[in-house]
């Protein structure tokens, strides 16, 4: 499907500031930082998680481990998909039991990914708490889920697409709104 870029919502400086602000909120809310672990949801949640972990190390000199979660095996639309999805590795080399888990994704939309992520986490152990951080909250929730830390609330229409690009895997840091184009 072709798509047209409608607007550039954030550039690299804004993303940096927002991540910095959320990191100080995390530090403020988690007195016991040593009990915090970060789980990034594939793919871009991982890189946001690593940036936050690095910032906490700079600000507080505490190492926060970052794990990688692939939610494919917990999707609720598996039987309706047109083709099979490639499942990727979940790499969490620490126990989540009794930890305060900070779950991170790039965009919060229907909430179904987060539901899948929470079910997956609970199968891996029994976290003390789960907090949610997203870079963009674009609305249109289908489940009763909200984030504890939000980079930016971005009102969108349901058809629009939100792209978060991060320089670790994309060319640069930016957030774009796009619209699918119907091909005649």
């Amino acid at each position, binding site marked *: 499907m072709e798509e047209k870029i409608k607007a550039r919502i954030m550039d690299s400086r804004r993303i940096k500031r927002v991540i910095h602000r959320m990191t100080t909120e995390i530090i403020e809310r988690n007195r016991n930082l040593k009990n915090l672990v970060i789980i990034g949801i594939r793919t871009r949640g991982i890189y946001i998680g690593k940036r936050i972990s690095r910032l906490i190390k700079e600000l507080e000199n505490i190492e926060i481990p970052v794990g990688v979660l*692939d939610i*494919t*095996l*917990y*999707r609720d639309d*598996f*039987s*309706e*998909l*047109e*083709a*099979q*999805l*490639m*499942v*990727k*590795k*979940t*790499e969490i080399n620490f126990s989540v039991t009794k930890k305060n888990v900070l779950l991170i994704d790039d965009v919060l939309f229907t909430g179904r990914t987060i539901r899948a992520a929470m*079910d*997956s986490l609970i*199968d*891996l*152990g029994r976290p003390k708490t789960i907090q949610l951080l997203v870079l963009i909250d674009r609305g249109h929730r289908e489940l009763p889920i909200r984030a504890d830390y939000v980079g930016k609330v971005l009102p969108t229409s349901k058809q629009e697409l939100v792209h978060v690009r991060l320089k670790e895997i994309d060319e640069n840091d930016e957030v774009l709104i796009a619209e699918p184009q119907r091909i005649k």
Partner: protein
Amino acid sequence: MPFVHKHLLGIQHLTASEILTILDTAESLFEISTREVKKVPILRGKTIINLFFEPSTRTRSSFELAAKRLSADIINFNQQTSSVVKGESLKDTVLNLEAMNPDALIIRHFAAGTPHYISTFCRSHIINAGDGAHEHPTQALLDAFTIRQAKKNFKDLKVVIIGDILHSRVARSNIFCLNKLGAKIILSGPPPLLPLEFKKFGVDIDFNLDRAIKGADVIMMLRIQLERQQKSSFPSLREYRNLYSLTKKRFRRAKKNAIIMHPGPINRGVEISAEMADSAKSVILKQVENGIAVRMAILYILLGGKERDSID
């Protein structure tokens, strides 16, 4: 490239990239079996039937655990306690099981081509778990997975497959699989069990094992199928042992970091010495462990997504 087949009937018709898709998926799923809670919900509500017309320890329990770790429901059909003993035909047996609405049938049968035959009149996904002397695709896939784990790459690997090639579906599937992935294959064994026609599969043949094994990266032993040796294809087990058993002395001719594989069950002291089977170079039990991940990958790939038209 995604995997587009409805069934897994053999390796012969798969492409290298389809094989690699299966191996990559298996790698992602491997970790589930190391968890405390060894289960993910992805195949919840799917029903699978293990339909085995031949004895099996590894393959049947491996498929059963693979299905259970993905939350599918699986039942085991046992020929001895079924209506097959009352004379029900294969087709009727399968049609009756299909009437119970399973999503996949896993079939092992002593006659080559049975899974293919069943796929011509069944709605379900058909998985070949070994048919006669034809193919045993999941064994070849788990062998490829195990080789990649140890060697990283297939290109120019020297793989020696030794023993009863003629009766071996494992050898056939492995030849197709490793050939597509770029390995160099040499077959060795007594001439009555190693027809020269195998050369048409693009392999080398050397009846002298001491020569064949030189510089090998992977040594794949096959079981001497004692139950199929009534007509005796070689003079005696002792002679077989002298010429083709994998001993420490023979193993020294292979590369230092060569690995020893065997699909099981092993005849200790016949095709492989107990010392070699238990040595640090042996990956025989790794093969068994990896088998679950590979079979999970097959079930995940075949049962995921919407119904596809069969292109098998």
